């Protein structure tokens, strides 16, 4: 041992080459070692859920900055870095992801893209939501600008997934989730989209509510066009279902006795309340026009065309505007067709016979009340009567063979009178008309069949 001390006093000259070796080692090893430590640190943090992770190594010291999603996760990450072999000191610059209040998530859809913004609680959820958006919005660019924040309401991801489905139903608009309140605005892509969105929102997780739903849908349009030249009535647009579809086509066929009905209607949900009732009424008004078109868009009815005479024009305007269902509006642009040239009595008779051959005046069953479906036909009869102002007209009622003869007689008279009253109300002088009833005494067809009976229940016009 004594020797060792003695010798050690002579070891100092080796320190000079040792210093050189030290310098070389520092020169060559510093950067590789730092890279090695950085790689080892990154590997150690592989299973830690962090955001904005940054690892700076100087010598053997690691400066570690990151946003953690919980205090526990933050501590665990720092421990992981401290445990990396070779690390001397850890400068802990970690912090918790900021807390958001209120917790807002937004999806904004315009024509070409969907932009997601606001907060998500975890990277896995952020990725899942972005993937879901891409899948739901097949082909539309999805730009994810969401950041991270703590404080998401429970079942946040389930609620947002549901909202993403609604974004897919929009043409343009914005869906916002603020804490547990959902707000929607914009335009649905399809008819019925608004209703579909409402229905889906009922499946929001418990505690979530709809604060505002201002989704508009494309207008629910129904159109009817009466073309007297082609003798057609063209129906187009939408009807709520097959039942309403059949009912409207049947009503059109009853009201438009001289026109062929072309049916281009399609069934779609999203009809406004009172649609069938209002369209039936408007079709009745259209049937009284010589030529015209009807457009129903959402709750607005627009009727334009030419009435057959002045009185009819006023009646149509008033009847359409009267007793509208709630929220409905009616707009009429009705002019009067120029009066046709006067004709003599025999031509009038022929015209009456022609028109009554095409359609018959309908009454409520067993009563003398004229059915609303016959308004168009009666307007045509009134127009003809106006063309031969000098001629007297006898209106004769007939019934079928069913029931008591006296009752049939009374009914036929009452019906003839009802028709005369209608024509007088239309502006014709009352003294031109004479009414009579023939009960079932003058049948024109066999009373033993339903078809024959229908033919026998009639009103004849006789020009004198």
């Amino acid at each position, binding site marked *: 041992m004594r020797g060792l001390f003695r010798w050690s006093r002579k070891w100092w000259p080796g320190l000079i080459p040792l210093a050189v*070796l030290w310098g070389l*080692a520092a020169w060559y090893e510093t950067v590789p070692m730092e890279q090695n430590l950085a790689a080892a640190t990154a590997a150690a943090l592989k299973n830690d859920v962090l955001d904005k992770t940054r690892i700076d190594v100087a010598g053997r010291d690691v400066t570690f900055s990151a946003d953690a999603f919980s205090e526990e996760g933050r501590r665990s990450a720092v421990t992981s870095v401290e445990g990396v072999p070779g690390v*001397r000191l850890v400068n802990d610059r970690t912090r918790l992801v900021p807390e958001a209040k209120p917790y807002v998530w937004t999806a904004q859809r315009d024509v070409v893209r969907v932009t997601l913004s606001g907060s998500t609680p975890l990277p896995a959820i952020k990725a899942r939501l972005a993937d879901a958006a891409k899948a739901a919005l097949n082909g539309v660019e999805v730009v994810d600008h969401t950041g991270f924040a703590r404080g998401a309401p429970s079942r946040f991801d389930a609620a947002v997934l549901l909202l993403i489905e609604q974004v897919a139903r929009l043409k343009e608009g914005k869906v916002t989730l603020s804490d547990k309140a959902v707000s929607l605005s914009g335009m649905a892509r399809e008819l019925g989209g608004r209703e579909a969105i409402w229905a889906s929102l009922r499946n929001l997780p418990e505690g979530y509510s709809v604060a505002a739903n201002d989704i508009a849908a494309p207008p629910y349009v129904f159109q009817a066009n009466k073309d007297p030249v082609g003798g057609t009535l063209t129906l187009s647009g939408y009807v709520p279902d097959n039942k309403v579809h059949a009912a409207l086509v049947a009503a059109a066929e009853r009201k438009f006795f001289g026109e062929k009905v072309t049916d281009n209607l399609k069934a779609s949900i999203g009809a406004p309340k009172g649609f069938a009732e209002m369209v039936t009424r408007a079709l009745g008004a259209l049937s009284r026009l010589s030529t015209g078109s009807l457009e129903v868009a959402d709750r607005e009815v627009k009727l334009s065309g030419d009435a057959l005479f002045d009185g009819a024009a006023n009646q149509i305007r008033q009847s359409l505007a009267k007793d509208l269902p709630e929220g409905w509006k009616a707009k009429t642009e009705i002019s009067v067709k120029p009066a046709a040239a006067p004709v003599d009595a025999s031509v009038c008779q022929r015209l009456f016979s022609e028109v009554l051959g095409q359609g018959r005046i309908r009454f409520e069953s067993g009563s003398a009340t004229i059915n609303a479906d016959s308004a168009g036909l009666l307007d045509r009869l009134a127009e003809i009567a106006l063309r031969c102002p000098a001629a007297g007209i006898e209106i004769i009622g007939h019934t079928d063979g069913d029931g008591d003869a006296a009752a049939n007689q009374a009914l036929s008279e009452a019906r003839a009178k009802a028709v005369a009253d209608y024509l007088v109300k239309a502006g014709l002088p009352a003294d031109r008309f004479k009414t009579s009833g023939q009960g079932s005494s003058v049948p024109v067809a066999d009373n033993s069949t339903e078809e024959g009976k229908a033919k026998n229940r009639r009103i004849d016009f006789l020009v004198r």
Partner: protein
Amino acid sequence: MTAFLTFHWGWLTGAALLGLAMGWISVVQHGEGLSKKVARIVALVVVVIVGVAVARVVPGRPGYWLDLGLVMFAAYLIGCAIGSALRDRLVARQMAAGRIPVRTDPPGPAA
């Protein structure tokens, strides 16, 4: 520390070999070497530097270089010790065989 030694094993081996060579020479080298006083000062300086390194006072790269230097110095010292011991044993054996009549290293004062 294991990771540190493993990563720098080449340089440490180099320092140890340098020490081995220096230790080998120092046994038969003429002269007194450092005086006791200087040796004490050197030992004190080394202790202070080791203290600084252990306390991890020097940050970043300089801190790393300090650690590296000290570890290399330690390897050097171990090399020196082994080198001297080996040479001393060899010299002792040769003296016993009478092959070296005169000792080249004059006896120093009792240390």
